[in-house]
C-alpha cells in the first residue's frame, strides 16, 4: 500500500539521481526518549520545497511541525531527541549523513531559520549590529568595519528606520515587530536558499503580523528562496503560501495547493481546522471546534491517529493507518475516505 508520491522520490534517491529539488524531507522519524517513555514525535514526514516556493506547514501545538524544522536545521536537542529514520536531502544530498562540519556550513548559507520569539532568540547582551555582523566576520572573513556596514544594509532591507544608528542598540530596545525584523535580517544575512520561519508572527500584534508576513513574502520573491512557513494560523497562510502541508501527531495528513485546500479539504482534520476559524457571518453562534485534544505522543492511537476525534470515523479507522494517497498532481491525503470528501459537493 505504498503511495505514488513517496515511491517516486524513493526511487530517484535510490538510483542516486538528485531529483532536482532544493530541500526534501522523506519519511523522517524522530523520537524523544523521556523518563516517561519514548514519544514518537515525527512518524514519517515527507515534504519538499523548491526555490521561489512557499510551503506552509500547518498544525496544532505538538503536531511535530517545529521539531521537523529543528531536525532540518540540525538544532534538535539530543538527548532527548533522536532521528530514527528517513532522509533530509539538500540539493539531493542527505544531510543526516553529513559530518557535523558540513552541516554547520549549510546553516545560515544554505538553510536559515527565523524563530518565533525574537526577544529570547536574540542574545540580550550584544547589540543587534554585532549579532548580524558576526556572521559576515566569521563566515565571510570580513573586517569589523565592512561587516558592520553590511549589517546596517541588512537592517535597511527589512525596513528598519535609522538602520545606521539602530545597529548599535540592544534587542530589548526594539519593539516586538522591529525585533522580528532584526531576526529576519539576521537569518537572511548569508543569503540562504531556504528559509524556515517557525511561527514568525505568533508573538506579535495582529497589525504587526500582517506587516511581517508581507515583508517575508516580499523578501522571498526578491531572493527566490524556498520558504517553509510553520504556523498554526490558517489566516496567515492563505495569502502567502503556494502549498500547504497539514500535520497531525507527527504525520502529514494532507498536502495540497493552497486554493484546493481551502476550497475542498480532503481530510476531516483540515475540514475541522477550517470550520473553527471564526467568521463574521456566524457572529453570535457558538464557535465550532474540533472536539477532544491532540493525542499524547507517548500513546498514539491505533490506526488513524485522528480517529478518536474524527466525526467521520468508522471501525476501519481504528485498525488501519491510512497512507498518504495521491489524489491529484498537487494533493495528497491520509484519510480512508479522502475520495468521498473530495467528490462530495
Amino acid at each position, binding site marked *: 500500500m505504498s503511495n505514488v508520491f513517496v515511491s517516486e522520490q524513493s526511487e530517484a534517491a535510490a538510483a542516486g539521481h538528485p531529483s532536482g529539488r532544493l530541500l526534501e524531507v522523506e519519511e523522517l522519524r524522530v523520537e524523544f526518549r523521556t523518563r516517561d517513555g519514548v514519544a514518537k514525535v515525527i512518524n514519517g514526514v515527507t515534504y519538499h520545497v523548491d526555490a521561489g516556493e512557499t510551503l506552509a506547514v500547518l498544525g496544532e501545538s505538538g503536531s511535530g511541525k517545529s521539531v521537523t524544522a529543528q531536525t532540518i536545521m540540525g*538544532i534538535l536537542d539530543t538527548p532527548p531527541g533522536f532521528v530514527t529514520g528517513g532522509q533530509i536531502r539538500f540539493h539531493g544530498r542527505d544531510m543526516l549523513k553529513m559530518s557535523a562540519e558540513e552541516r554547520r556550513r*549549510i546553516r*545560515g548559507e544554505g538553510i*536559515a531559520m527565523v524563530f518565533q520569539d525574537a526577544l529570547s*532568540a536574540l*542574545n*540580550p547582551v550584544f*547589540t543587534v549590529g554585532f549579532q548580524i555582523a558576526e556572521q559576515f566576520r566569521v563566515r565571510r572573513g570580513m573586517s569589523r568595519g565592512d561587516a558592520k556596514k553590511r549589517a546596517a544594509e541588512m537592517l535597511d532591507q527589512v525596513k528598519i528606520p535609522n538602520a545606521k544608528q539602530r545597529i548599535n542598540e540592544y534587542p530589548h530596545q526594539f519593539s516586538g515587530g522591529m525585533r522580528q525584523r532584526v531576526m529576519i535580517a539576521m537569518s537572511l544575512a548569508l543569503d540562504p536558499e531556504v528559509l524556515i520561519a517557525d511561527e514568525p508572527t505568533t508573538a506579535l500584534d495582529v497589525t504587526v503580523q500582517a506587516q511581517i508576513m508581507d515583508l517575508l513574502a516580499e523578501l522571498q520573491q526578491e531572493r527566490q528562496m524556498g520558504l517553509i512557513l510553520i504556523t498554526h494560523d490558517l489566516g496567515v497562510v492563505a495569502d502567502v503560501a503556494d502549498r500547504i502541508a497539514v500535520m497531525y501527531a507527527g504525520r502529514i495528513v494532507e498536502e495540497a495547493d493552497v486554493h484546493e485546500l481551502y476550497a475542498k479539504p480532503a481530510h476531516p482534520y483540515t475540514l475541522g481546522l477550517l470550520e473553527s476559524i471564526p467568521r463574521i457571518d456566524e457572529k453570535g453562534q457558538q464557535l465550532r471546534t474540533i472536539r477532544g485534544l491532540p493525542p499524547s505522543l507517548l500513546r498514539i492511537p491505533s490506526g488513524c491517529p485522528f480517529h478518536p476525534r474524527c466525526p467521520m470515523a468508522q471501525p476501519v479507522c481504528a485498525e488501519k493507518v491510512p497512507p498518504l494517497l495521491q489524489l491529484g498532481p498537487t494533493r495528497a491525503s491520509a484519510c480512508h475516505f479522502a475520495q468521498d470528501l473530495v467528490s462530495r459537493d
Partner: protein
Amino acid sequence: MGRYVLRRLLQLIPVFFGTTILIYWLVWSVPGDPFAGKCGERACPDSYVQFMTDKYHLDDPLPVQYFHYMANLLTGDFGQTFGGRDIGEIIAAAYPNTLKLALVALTIEAVIGLTAGVLSGLRRNGFLDNLVLVSTLFLVAIPTFVTGFVLQFLLGVQWKIINPTVSSDAPISELIVPGFVLGSISMAYVARLTRTSIAENSRADYVRTAVAKGLPRRRVVGVHLLRNSLIPVITFLGTDLGSLMGGAIVTEGIFGINGIGREVYRAIVTKEGATVVGIVVVLVMVYLLMNLLVDLLYAALDPRIRYE
C-alpha cells in the same frame, strides 16, 4: 549614570557616620580597663592612669569623645594607640599585605572556580562534573582554619615545600597557599555558580540561534554562552573581593601574615578602641566602594540594566 554614581557616593556620608557611631559605641561599651596589664606585673600608677585618661578624654561623655575623634578623623588623623603609635601608620603598613592576599585569593578563586564550572557545566553528569560536585562539597564543608592548618602542616612542616609562615613583606609567591586557603570556599561557590549558569544558559534560545547561524562551537560557547553565564559569577566575585579586602583574621593568623585582620584582632584584645574604630571605618568604606563598583560592572555586563 553619572547622577547615579554621585547619588551612591553621597549615600556613603550617612553610612560613614552611622557605622562610626555604632562601632565607637560598641568598642567602648565592652567591659574592661584599657590600662589593666599595661604596666607589667603591677597595677599602673594612679598618676599614669590619670594622665592617659586626660590625654584621651576617657572621662568625657561618649558623644563628646566621639566628637573629638571625628574632628581629628576628618582631617585625616586616625589618632594614636595608647602606646603612642600612629594608627594611620599601622593601617598603612598592614593594608598592602591584606590587599595582596585578597588579590591572590581572588585570582585563584576566579581561575580555578571558573574553569571547573565551565567544563562541568558543558559536560553535565560526566566524570569531571561529578568530581567537581564532590570536591566543592568537600571544600565548602571544611572550615577555613582546618584547611589552613592542614596545608600549613603538610606543605610547610611535613614536606617542606613552602615556608610555614609568611615573611613580613609578604611576597606574592609566599601568599599562594594562604590565598588558596582563604579563597577555597568561595572557589567552590564560583565553580558551582558557573556550572549552574552555564548549564541553564546552554539551553537558552539565543544559544540555539547562534548554532542555527552556523557559528563554530567554540564561538557559540566562548562568546554567546559565556558572556551571559558570567554575569552572576562576576557579581559574586566582586562582592567577595569586597569581603576579602576586609582582612582575614583566621588565615592571616595561621600563616602569620601582617595584615589588617590581625591588627584588628590585636586591637580588640588589647582594648585599643581607637585602632578598632579606625580600621573598621576604612574597611566599611572599602566595602561600600567595592559594592558600588560591582553594581557599575553589572550594568556594563548586562545592557538591560540601566541606572537612572
